[in-house]
Structures are given as structure tokens and as C-alpha cells.
């Protein structure tokens, strides 16, 4: 029997918990869910003045994605996959999840919404963000007194 603590850990979506190694979480899942493994579906890269975010979102309409920026917070609302007419379908297997998702990212710098680019390619939403120019640390020269 799994302890309460372990049960809670197993059912939390892995990408909600920064500070946990993804491989650790996948080990939790592999005990119970042999057939299907949760996809590590958010990837981020960053430097002091720019960042890149990739979100796996197969089968969606890119026009329905909502991206907003406020200071150092970037929020992405990913719509549910495009509705197919699946009424009356006889499913032999049904695993794909249909819901929408909202992901918030705290960037290491205030972002420039004007220099944010988003591309949807092969089912991956790729967002690149740059730091606001006026927020870059300014250098101050020391005059000889």
C-alpha cells in the first residue's frame, strides 16, 4: 500500500513542481503506470537578457493560443486540441487528453512584449522573449574626485 504522502506525490502533474527532478517523478509514475508515461512537456532556457520556452501542445489551433506578459510574468493559455467530430466513434483505445491548459512563467527579467515571438511548429509552441531594454543594469562610471 502506498503511504498518503507517496500517493499525493504520484498524482501531482510533474510540470507543476519546480525544484523536483523530473527523473525522480518519472520513477514514481513508472511503478503504477506501466503503459503510458507522462510527457515532460515544458522546456525552458534562459540567460540574463533572453529566454525561450517550449510547450508541447499537439493538435491545437495556434490562433487560439493566448500569450500575455506583465513585467517578468509570462502567461500562456493553450486551448484544448481542435475538436474533431468524434461522436459515434468506436474507440478501441482512448488516452489523449482533451483539456485546455494555463501555464505561468516567472522570467529572470522584465520582458519586452514587443520583442516576444511565438511559433507553432510540429505541435510544439515555441516562445522567445527578450529583456526590456530600459531594465538592463546600467553601468555607472566612477569619476576621479
Amino acid at each position, binding site marked *: 500500500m502506498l503511504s498518503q504522502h507517496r500517493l499525493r506525490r504520484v498524482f501531482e*502533474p510533474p*510540470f*507543476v513542481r*519546480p*525544484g*523536483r*527532478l*523530473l*527523473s525522480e517523478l518519472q520513477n514514481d509514475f513508472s511503478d503504477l503506470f506501466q*503503459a*503510458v*508515461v507522462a*510527457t*515532460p*512537456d*515544458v*522546456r*525552458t*532556457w*534562459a*540567460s*540574463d537578457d*533572453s*529566454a*525561450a*520556452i*517550449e510547450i*508541447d*501542445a*499537439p*493538435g*491545437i489551433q495556434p490562433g487560439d493560443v493566448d500569450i500575455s506578459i506583465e513585467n517578468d510574468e509570462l502567461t500562456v493559455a493553450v486551448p484544448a486540441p481542435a475538436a474533431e467530430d*468524434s461522436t459515434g*466513434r*468506436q*474507440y*478501441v*483505445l*482512448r*488516452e*489523449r*487528453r*482533451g*483539456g*485546455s*491548459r*494555463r*501555464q*505561468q*512563467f*516567472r*522570467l*529572470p527579467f522584465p520582458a519586452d512584449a514587443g520583442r516576444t515571438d511565438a511559433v*507553432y511548429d*510540429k*505541435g*510544439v509552441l*515555441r516562445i*522567445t522573449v527578450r529583456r526590456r531594454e530600459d531594465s538592463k543594469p546600467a553601468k555607472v562610471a566612477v569619476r576621479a574626485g
Partner: protein
Amino acid sequence: MSQENTTTMVADQDQAVAQSAPQLQPIQITPRADIWEAEDSFVLAIEMPGVGDADADLTLEQNVLTVRGSAKSQAYEGLKPAVGDCRPRQYERSFRLSDAIDGQHLEATAKDGVLIVRMPKAQHAVARKITVRPA
């Protein structure tokens, strides 16, 4: 059904869930799939984000269909991995097909990270109407 998530990204590797390992061993992923029955075929829709037509591989051997796909993120110059597992992804899943499927005529196409495989039913498996002739 919707989910809310918050992720904090910091460039400082100490605090981040960093994939800082020098080796870029791909992550092995078992992709999610739907299979449904149409009138004259079965359709398999398998989710492999980042995989296009050229990155997908299908093999059929002894009635076992194996679907493979590889996805790799582009190199982001000057950026370090922050949160999430940034390694390349290797998708693989096998399905045992029954004799009801005509394995010689599978058709597959990738669209927006979903590989759709159309598997026509074998002739003997398609329901046929038999007309009753007057004697």
C-alpha cells in the same frame, strides 16, 4: 477540464530544475494514442509533439506495428536550460494488429505533432451486405 500551472525560471542553475548533464541522452517517451474504428479502417492517432513526417518511423513486423519518432529542440544560442527536461525526445510504442487489418496498405501522416495512421480493414473483415436474389 483545464489545468493551472506556475513555473519559475531562473538563470541561476543552483535553483533551477536544470538538465545540466553534458550527455544529451534522449528521453524515452511512450506516446499517448487514440485508436478508433471507422467503417472500412481503423485509425490510430498518436501524439508525438516535435515530430514531423521526416522524423517519424513506422515498421510492421509479424503483425506488430512499431511507431517511433524523434524530436529535438533547436539550439538556443547563449541560453542555458532552466526549468524542465531539455533533452531530445525519443518516442516509441508498439501495437499488435489483428488479422482484421490489412498491414500492406497502412497510410501515415503527421500533422501538428499528431501522427495519424490509417489502417484499412482486411477484405474479409469488412462487413458486406449480401443481397438476397429472388430464386
